[in-house]
């Protein structure tokens, strides 16, 4: 027996991108995305231009910022539906403070602290009173959206200072900084999900929170941190978006939470926890962006977009569920 044990390979048939059973296998998703990319590239001569790809990536990179924390909240079998509102609130607050004559860093700092506070309250209430996070964050979603509208109203359509706009347009090695950040974060996530003890703990919590507890994993702390992270990353994205749209828009971030869920799920996260992969979420966002871009390139009736996204979502999950019965 000992004999047999020692010559069993350390890890049998590990899927290429799967990491070590943590994260999730994004190979399939990567291939699908690649296929769509190839299809558009071959059929539309204006698609594979540096300009267009750059635009797509830039759009994705900002939403990506918001999905970072969100994904890891999902890994722990929780969900944060308040991201869209926090996104809008943080951005609008920053803008309002700037209009009020603040400097950028103080303004952004205060706004991000506010976001962190919201995240903390979400996490704390979920952990302490074990409230279902889906229900709770619907409440905070509403509450924060209200606050953000109050701000937007005060501003009444004023534009933010011109200096602020340059933020979103900042370049690093003549690429938009958010794109650079996204690439860096994806690489970090790769390592994080392969090696980090923290990520494994998150997966264990998502898989079976009681086991995690008896194994001495600090469930409460980690969950709260994740909610704070979720709010703050949404906040950062919100600040960039505010700098992009240059004035208070009441529709900012509306329905973002569901785009996030869709992307994260397509990216391999599960509402049943224990899975979730930032690389996958990024691919999920990219996939959605490619589809929309393609529909414009093909001049498809704009109103079809929603339908396609919905079908995509159900198809993905149905596929996943039927393949490896992760249902009830």
């Amino acid at each position, binding site marked *: *027996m*000992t004999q047999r*044990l*020692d010559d*069993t390979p*350390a*890890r*049998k048939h590990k899927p290429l991108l799967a990491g*070590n*059973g943590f994260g999730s296998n994004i190979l399939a998703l990567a291939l699908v995305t690649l296929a769509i990319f190839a299809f558009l590239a071959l059929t539309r001569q204006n698609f594979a231009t540096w300009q267009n790809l750059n635009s797509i990536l830039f759009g994705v990179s900002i939403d990506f910022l918001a999905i970072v924390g969100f994904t890891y909240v999902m890994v722990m079998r929780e969900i944060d539906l308040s991201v869209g509102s926090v996104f809008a609130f943080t951005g609008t607050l920053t803008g309002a403070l700037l209009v009020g004559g603040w400097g950028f860093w103080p303004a952004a700092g205060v706004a991000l602290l506010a976001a962190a506070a919201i995240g903390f309250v979400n996490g704390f209430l979920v952990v302490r009173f074990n409230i279902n996070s889906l229900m709770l964050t619907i409440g905070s979603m509403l509450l924060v959206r209200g606050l953000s509208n109050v701000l937007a109203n005060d501003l009444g359509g004023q534009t933010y200072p011109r200096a602020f706009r340059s933020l979103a347009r900042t370049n690093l090695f003549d690429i938009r900084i958010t794109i650079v950040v996204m690439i860096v974060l994806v690489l970090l996530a790769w*390592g994080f999900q392969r*090696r*980090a*003890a*923290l990520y*494994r*703990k998150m*997966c*264990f919590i998502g*898989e*079976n929170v*009681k*086991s*995690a*507890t*008896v*194994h*001495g*994993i*600090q469930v409460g702390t980690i969950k709260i941190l994740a909610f704070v992270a979720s709010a703050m990353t949404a906040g950062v994205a919100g600040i960039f978006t505010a700098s992009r749209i240059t004035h208070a828009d009441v529709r900012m971030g509306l329905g973002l939470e569901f785009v996030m869920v869709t992307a994260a799920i397509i990216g391999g996260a599960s509402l049943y926890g*224990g899975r979730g992969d930032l690389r996958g979420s990024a691919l999920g966002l990219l996939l959605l962006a490619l589809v929309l871009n393609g529909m414009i390139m093909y001049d498809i009736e704009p109103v079809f977009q929603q339908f396609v996204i919905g079908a995509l979502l159900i198809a993905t999950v149905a596929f996943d569920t039927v393949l490896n019965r992760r249902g009830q």
Partner: protein
Amino acid sequence: MSVAGTLPHAQTSSVAAQPILSLSRVSKSYGAVQALREVGFDVARGEVHAILGENGAGKSTTLKIIHGEIEPDEGEIRLSGRVTSASDRAEGDIAMVHQELAVFANMSVAENIFVGRMPRRGGRIDFARMHRRAAELLELFGVQVDTREILGQLTPGQQQIVEILRAVESDASLLILDEPTSGLNNREAETLMALIKRLRESGHTILYVSHRLPEVLEIADDITVLRDGQFVETLRNEGLSEDDLIRRMVGRDLGPVAVSDLSSVAAAPVALAVKGMSLSGAFEDVTIDVRKGEIVGVFGLEGSGAEPFSQALFGIVPPTSGSLSLLGKPVRDVSPAGLMRRGLGYLNGNRKEAGLYMDRTIADNVSAPVLDRFSRLGLVDAGKVDELARTDIRRFAIRVPGPEGRPRELSGGNQQKVAISACLANAPEVIVLNEPTRGVDVGAKAELHDVVRNEAAAGKALLVFSSDLPELLRLVHRIVVMRSRRVAGEVGGADMTEAAVMALAAGNR
């Protein structure tokens, strides 16, 4: 109690002589484990028939087969002489109370008793009648609760009674009770005895499983003994003693086996000191010391507070008052993480509920508690994890292809071994074990016992919570017995007998 006649009457058949139930050469195996091997015995109509056996002997399996929940691999089961299929029996005139609670905490007591069979008038439920009937049934046990109360509000014991009443109300002529008294306090247990007797009088047949030998001797007409999944014999309950039964159940005489005598540990320093610990509503003023190298058992029937105490001890629900010190140092932060850092190890009683990640590899499972120790700068050293998994698989002889195996694919016993490996991964100095061999077959059980003894020999302090009294008697130096939320007393050395412990646990029988 003035309830004569409130009990349903089973239609007594013409051929009273013919056994109502007879099993012949019934076998059942779960993958590796032979749960039952060619078991056969008869159950006479209108009698109370007890089935005895150690944990894992195959009692529940037998009952589930009779109830028609699981198909036997071989053998035939006759009801009143007629050969039946599992589905026949499932449909048929048999009611069963399972070992594990299956209740609806969100519904009223009465509704829990009647579930699918609520009395109806026209389309609507006849609540008046339902509650009246439910009240009568509760009265049998003198359970002082309103039938309209939400079940979740009742004590586990009361909930168990409700489940028993569900079976009684179904008015089946064959009634199967699998360890119904495990959750009951003394008075309730006695009432159940009385009820069973009346059911027998009213022509019902009862199949009865319990680990409480006195009550078996009290009510059983016949007693069938199983051992390691095999039929030993069926005895007529006349002039039998508990020892007769135990000898047949265990197949060998039990002394405190292979236990190093107390004197060796008497001198050793106290590793775990619990003083006056209480959790309001769960247990009060518990004081226990465990010395290095000592194995202390904690025994208590359901509702005795033993289980909440073990959880509070590990901070799963932190205690409200009292003091706790590990290895001589007082501990203030009673949280699982905090206690583990100070060298406490904890095995949960129900591995499926907490202790395993069914879909993660063995390596992940055993490394979960020690991730921090295995990482530098927050990055896990995969090599160490793999190494740990391989050594554990060897050390505990876990039947599994390799570190990549997953608990879901393992047998219960091997799952249990994985859970224990995880518990010991952190090399704790003080170890709290809950039901260390639950649902484990005899072979694996012995292996696990050796593991425990070795830990003790290595100078660790162990506190073992188990509902399996024979196991405790074999395994530990002394037993602290809990009753009605308090420490009822302690037995050790020579006078550590099943009877003595039961006397404390169940209150003078």
